[in-house]
């Protein structure tokens, strides 16, 4: 019974919205609102396996490559900068400035410097998505618990072991928060870099539909992009939950106690 109620809560509003769209589009003559039939047609004819291979998968691959690079660079540089006080003070204003630059304006810059290939798009994603991770890692390393730090010193836990067992875990909640922000930035940059300079990819395809006034196809592209965003955030939540299991558990204990 309870399960059924929860299920209804989840499904009710989306179902209502979809029903409203179906009813409205059926009687509407608006050019911009496709009917259910048009949409399902557009979906099956547009997002075929061939299209997936030529446009969707390369885009997603670039996105993943950019994200992985940002995460690696962000964490490594962040650990380094966070561990040395002077380095942090030296770099902080510059990094804050870079973070404040809207990342999309770097697309024209990178087009000039690297061209319009895959590496440009990945570079743009990295340069936009790396800052939240980097700054959060620094902050995480900085705000490490002093007692823990002293204790591990006393036990002569140094070098790699210190990073592996002390610094990384204690900075992890913040690193994950940074990665969460980076996900949406990376997705935006993937789409924009393809809209701005490309002849293939998801962003290009969607803008192409719009230019040729293929409205149902365009809508289907928007839905695909939305789905990618939703899937990404789902995957992230699963990963976060397993990586930070100890942290959530610890907090729950403390909140309950």
């Amino acid at each position, binding site marked *: 019974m309870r399960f059924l109620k929860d299920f209804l809560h989840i499904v009710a509003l*989306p179902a209502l919205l979809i029903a409203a769209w179906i009813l409205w589009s059926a009687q509407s003559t608006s050019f911009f609102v496709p009917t259910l039939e048009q949409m399902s047609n557009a979906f099956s004819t547009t997002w075929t396996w061939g299209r997936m291979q030529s446009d969707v998968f390369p885009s997603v691959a670039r996105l993943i490559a950019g994200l992985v690079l940002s995460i690696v660079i962000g964490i490594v540089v962040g650990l380094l900068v966070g561990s040395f006080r002077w380095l942090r003070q030296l770099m902080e204003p*510059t990094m804050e400035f870079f*973070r404040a630059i*809207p990342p999309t304006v770097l697309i024209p810059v990178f087009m000039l410097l690297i061209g319009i290939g895959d590496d440009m798009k990945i570079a743009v994603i990295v340069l936009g998505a790396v800052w939240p991770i980097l700054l959060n890692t620094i*902050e995480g390393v900085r705000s490490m618990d002093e007692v823990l730090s002293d204790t591990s010193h006393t036990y002569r836990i140094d070098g790699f072991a210190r990073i592996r067992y002390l610094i990384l875990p204690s900075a992890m909640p913040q690193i994950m928060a940074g990665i969460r922000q980076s996900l*949406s930035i990376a997705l935006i940059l993937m789409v924009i870099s393809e809209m701005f300079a490309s002849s293939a990819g998801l962003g290009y395809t969607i803008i192409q539909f719009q230019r040729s006034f293929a409205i149902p196809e365009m809508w289907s592209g928007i839905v695909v992009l939305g789905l990618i965003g939703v899937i990404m955030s789902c995957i992230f939540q699963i990963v976060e*939950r397993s990586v930070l299991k100890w942290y959530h558990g610890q907090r*729950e204990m403390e909140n309950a106690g």
Partner: protein
Amino acid sequence: MTERDLSKGPAPHDDEAVDRERQSRDVHRLETAGGDSFPAGYRVAGLDEATRPDPGAPTASTAQRGATGRKTSTGQAQAVRQRRRTWANRLLGLVGILLFLGIWELLPLLGIVDARYMPPASAAIADLIVKFGDSVFWIAVWDTLRAWAIGMLIAVVAAAILGFIIGSSNFLRKFTNSTIEFLRPVPSVALIPLAVLVFGVGIESALLLIVYASFWQVLIQVLYGVADVDAVAMDTAKSYGLGPLNRIRYVIFPTALPYLMTGVRLAAAVALILAITAQLIIGTPGLGAEIARAQSGGAYTSMYSLVLATGMMGVLINMVTRAVERSVLSWHTSVRSEVK
């Protein structure tokens, strides 16, 4: 610049909540004794807890208090030392900026990067200074700022009202949860084609993107804020005969305000990104459109100086929103304890 005194004030990153939360775990535990005050629905759906502000958090970190919580020296000596440290900080930060500019200056001069595509820093800065005397530049800045401000206003007002309505009803919260969770991660740039078709290159297209992107940031925070209302305070207000309106005014609103301000701060940064992006891609007038024009017209120095200008704008907006947050929340403990 954005340099801040590390010893006081919350960290500048928007996920500072995690940090503060960790620093204040014991305080938080006292406040929410008897379990987390979040409705179960949010937990399950995994709304990000990381972006929750922690209004009760003390701003002094464990590190500053010393591991044992003892004060390590007298207040005055500490203040002097801190002031000195602040100045050293600023100086080092300045050196960092100069270093960066130096590297940028050298890259094209040494021929590592083609000087045509990457003019030296001095050229870009000189160009920016020339632009400061140019009305075209200021019109572009004004266009960008206007789109940003209008978009923010619509998003914040709509999200705050909806957030209070949805947040104060358990049923509505459960009812809308799945839809909010689904719509939130949809990237706003996916709406670009729609915006172009419906609104063309007018400011409305930019507004659509800005409002969509910043709306969720604020809404989520307000929902957290309303959910965070202390049950005892609410019951007290009820037993003193406060009506629903007064309860909103004196209990719910003050609790949710810090959350709302966090949402506004997050939204301000996102809104600027979307404003510039819309101008860059769609061509609505503003700095982004100027950058696209400079790039396609081969005015590369101008492009770099405009990129610098957008960065400055971002820094400025960050500073202003943080200042506004501080003054709006001046009564709040999390800010009050900073002043001392």
